């Protein structure tokens, strides 16, 4: 989740009091923030915010607000949500918009003169919200404008790509929408959002002046807010109305916190939405929810009483009405993350501070145990170590070449589970056997003194298209000896000792396998079933791995050795 830059002075002025860096770090618990870095010379503080459902906390205004509420013990009242009078400005949504980018919200903010600091923060929150919360502008994007240049009413409608021309931010000449999508860096970056639409969204005013081409780029003329501006318009477009409204509410609260007066705008849709055909934005978006007191008390393990819970929630920004057993709660306008009463319980705990809850031990008796497979694996490991083998431990994403081609095999001989979205060919397959992991070590370690006696026991994925998941995960053991006289007999002895102590009868059945020398390879048979291979590696394999030492090996499925009758 996002990491943002805030400045201590700016933070203190929003908070309304000075604060030491230790205090700030401590308060960041209230917003699930972590202090990453602090530069005392500039006052810059880097904060990482964890909660992907609380985009209101991804900015200095939101962080300061949550702390301010806690310090004052009651929610912030935003008068622009209360006034009943009809807004003096209107924006009309055009027909057909429901198929392209259906939702729109906007408001004006006057009386706050934009400072250098304020502008930087406005741009930062605009970017973080559109990029992360808005899925790279797909679901939400935001535009900021110089209000005095706009003649209302404004229209958010569709036009043909060649029909409209304006000078976009970052350019000096007028371009058509079609040109913007192919030439402008932002057009190229975000054109896929509008792919396949014959007509494109545009925002223009009464005079026909173009404000922007959402969600791509603003006009240079009207859509470039500058330091010193004191009358702004904020607009949000998107594909999810709740997210669009929440985003505008966050901007409105942020600007109001900086001293602006927020003037709502009436948005008139030609089609019905979940909030009606005419929406005054910003607006309250959360319903009042009833939460039983006991639900919170039992989740937190503490009978706190309704009064304590009421106080904790008020001091976290909730509007609360309490009766004896039930709380009627409503989230503030800049939040929309209440899905279940348990969410309220967490906010109570955060508001009161986790340190105020005394830990108690879970008291119920349970029996600890390892799986039969793990116990068998451990038993096998003990015996391999006892026979003088060094245990190895490898990454299990490998290259196809290591698993198949270097083993003198073809994809038809040896299917493996492959990754679709490959990042590096070195990590493109799940290993299907462990021997290639050990050979990687041999290739890398010719200077480690001999003999090499290695083993690894671990998970592999065996492709099997008849299974539900297309593969199964099993544990295999591979063991290897490498030295000038390494041969079949030596590794056979190790296998034989291991099987003796596993109390497991087995036979070897001659077979042929392209990784091994003919006549020196066998299947390890247990109860009529092949559970693995033993043999001397073919010189072709050794050459492919650039190994100049004879190697003999065995590899078997540990799953087949598990005794379930414990």
């Amino acid at each position, binding site marked *: 989740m996002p990491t943002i830059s805030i400045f201590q002075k700016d933070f203190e002025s929003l908070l309304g009091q000075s604060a030491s860096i230790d205090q700030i770090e401590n308060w960041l*618990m209230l917003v699930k923030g972590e202090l990453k870095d602090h530069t005392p010379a500039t006052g810059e503080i880097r904060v990482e915010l964890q909660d992907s459902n609380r985009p209101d906390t991804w900015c200095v205004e939101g962080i300061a607000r949550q702390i301010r509420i806690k310090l004052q013990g009651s929610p912030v009242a935003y008068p622009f949500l209360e006034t009943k009078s009809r807004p003096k400005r209107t924006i009309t949504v055009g027909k057909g918009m429901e198929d392209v980018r259906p939702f729109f919200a906007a408001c004006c903010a006057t009386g706050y003169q934009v400072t250098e600091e304020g502008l930087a923060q406005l741009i930062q929150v605009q970017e973080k919200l559109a990029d992360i919360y808005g899925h790279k502008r797909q679901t939400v994007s935001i535009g900021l404008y110089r209000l005095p240049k706009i003649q209302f009413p404004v229209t958010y409608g569709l036009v043909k790509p060649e029909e409209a021309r304006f000078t976009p931010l970052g350019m000096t000449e007028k371009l058509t929408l079609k040109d913007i999508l192919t030439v402008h860096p932002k057009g190229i970056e975000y054109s896929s959002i509008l792919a396949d639409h014959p007509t494109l969204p545009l925002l223009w005013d009464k005079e026909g002046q173009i404000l922007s081409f959402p969600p791509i780029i603003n006009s240079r003329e009207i859509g470039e807010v500058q330091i010193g501006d004191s009358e702004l318009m904020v607009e949000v477009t998107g594909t999810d109305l709740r997210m669009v409204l929440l985003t505008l509410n966050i901007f409105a609260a942020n600007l109001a916190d900086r001293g602006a007066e927020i003037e709502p705008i009436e948005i008139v849709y030609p089609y019905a939405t979940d909030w009606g055909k005419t929406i005054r934005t910003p607006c309250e978006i959360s319903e009042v929810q009833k939460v039983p007191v006991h639900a919170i008390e039992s989740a937190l393990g503490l009978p706190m009483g309704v009064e304590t819970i009421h106080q904790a929630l008020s001091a976290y920004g909730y509007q609360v009405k309490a009766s004896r057993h039930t709380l009627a709660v409503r989230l503030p306008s800049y939040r929309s993350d209440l899905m279940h009463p348990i969410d309220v319980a967490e906010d109570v705990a955060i508001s009161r501070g986790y340190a105020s809850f005394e830990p108690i031990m*879970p008291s119920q008796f*349970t029996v600890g145990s390892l799986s039969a497979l793990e116990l068998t694996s451990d038993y096998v490991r003990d015996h391999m170590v006892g026979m003088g083998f060094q245990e190895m431990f490898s990454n299990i994403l490998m290259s196809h070449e290591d698993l198949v081609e270097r083993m003198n095999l073809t994809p038809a001989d040896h299917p493996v589970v492959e990754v*679709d979205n490959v990042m590096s060919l070195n990590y493109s397959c799940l290993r299907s056997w462990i021997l290639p992991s050990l050979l990687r070590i041999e290739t890398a370690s010719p200077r480690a*003194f001999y003999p090499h006696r290695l083993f690894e026991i671990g998970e592999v994925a065996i492709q099997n298209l008849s299974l539900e998941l297309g593969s199964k*995960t099993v544990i295999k053991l591979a063991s290897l000896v490498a030295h000038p006289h390494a041969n079949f007999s030596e590794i056979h002895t190790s296998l034989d000792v291991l099987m003796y102590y596993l109390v497991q009868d087995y036979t070897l059945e001659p077979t042929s396998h392209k990784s091994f020398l003919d006549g020196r390879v066998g299947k390890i048979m247990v109860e009529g079933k092949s559970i693995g291979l033993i043999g001397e590696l073919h010189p072709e394999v050794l050459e492919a791995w650039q190994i100049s030492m004879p190697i003999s090996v065995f590899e078997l499925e540990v799953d087949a050795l598990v005794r379930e009758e414990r």
Partner: protein
Amino acid sequence: MSAKDQHDSLHPLEVHLLAALCSQSTALSDVKLAELTPLDPSQISMALGWLQAKAFIRIDSETITHFVGLTEVGRGYLAIGSPAEWILLSCSAATQDGNSLTVKDLQAKELFQPTELSRAIGLLKKEGAIQMVAGGAIETTSTPSPTTEKLKGLLGQLETATEDLSVFSPDDQTLLKQFSVKRGNAQEPFRIEERVERAYMLTTEGQDVAKLCRPGATEEISQLTPDMLKDGTWRNKPFRKYSINLRPPRVAPGRRHPYREFLDLVKRRLVSMGFQEMRGPLVETEFWDMDALYMPQFHPARAIHDVYFVKNPTSADKIAEPFLSRVAEAHEHGGSTGSTGWGYQYDRERARRLVLRSQGTAVSARTLAANPLVPGKYFSIARCFRYDQVDATHATDFFQVEGIILGEDINFRTLLGLLTLFAKEMAQAKESKFLPAYFPFTEPSVELHVRHPRLGWMELGGAGLFRPEVTHPLGVTVPVIAWGLGLDRMAMMALGLHDIRDLFSVDLEKVRTMRGRFS
């Protein structure tokens, strides 16, 4: 130790060398020592090593001599001539028969490597012994090739023995060096080897000990044998004393992998706290890896750049009911969980998409759906995969230690109690603190920070109570703690590692020498 004591613990081989060195006033080479003692070269080299380690002798001077001899390639040239010589003979023979040979014709005989032939042709052209005519044919001229002649002479001269390079004329030396084996080019007729001859002298301490040496004077027992014990002959002779403070020879023992050993300890501790092991598949469906954990399908961490998708097959056949329907309802509108849900159209096709398990919590989800015990405690040490560039702090696959606790008495405070226990048992931390955290599948969520005895404050793990949207659709109605621990940093510190890739090192020497005790 006195010179007498030091003398008594000498090996017989050492006695021979010291006596020989003492008998001459000059420094002696190993060749000279071989003449003066009855020892063979390997014994001399071994004893010289021991005596140097004891500082009884030192190297007085080093002389480097270069010897030149024939390689297998060179012996081949003796039999059929060098490439240049052979080309001249072949081409003039062809001309006499009224034919001509091209480079291709020469290569077709396969007597020499193409690179050997092309170099010889270049040489002959340069010296004017051949010329290329129309059609690529090679024609000999009347001009001789001095280099070819000289090479022939040198090959003959070295047929029987290697020679000191310095006996050759400077011109010949240049030629020998030019045609000798070098790194990256083994197809050469000569090989020049460096031999270092060292001359050894006694040190002052060595002189004192050497004066006492009388080779063969007293017969000492070096190794007690069964025969001596049987016939009692051990009683008649003294036992040679050993230098017991010399380093012993190194062996590679059978041994567990140190990181695995650490995970074994974690495993034992969890079992001792009453946790039962659970296991799950490496290849998972998006359903069990994410949907069942109430991560919405539009969650930012579910994009193509966060998870590895499987290529063959791309999807599972089906997702077991009633879990699929219940989870779909929870996502869409909360179903019977008491939640509003995420409020989007859940894509049941996408749920079947196969991924490499991205989080150990997937194993917990499967356990919840399989009638777990109540009260019950489960853990897994699960291999997980992340779509990350590999570097010192990111691995493509790694282990997550995580688990769940089910019980009627589970709540936020028992969660904190469990974490306090983990801080003590897993990190030996006396101090710990809890911070609010965010995970899509838990509420409330906690981060556990501990003050580690050596690492200072560090994040040890994350935990929380599973959201009802997770537990109810999987058929669990009691509260459930979900926890995960990040232990790799502690393992790395104990093993002295700074790079996460070293936990799975392919360097055998590194693994053999890696050590550390986990408290």
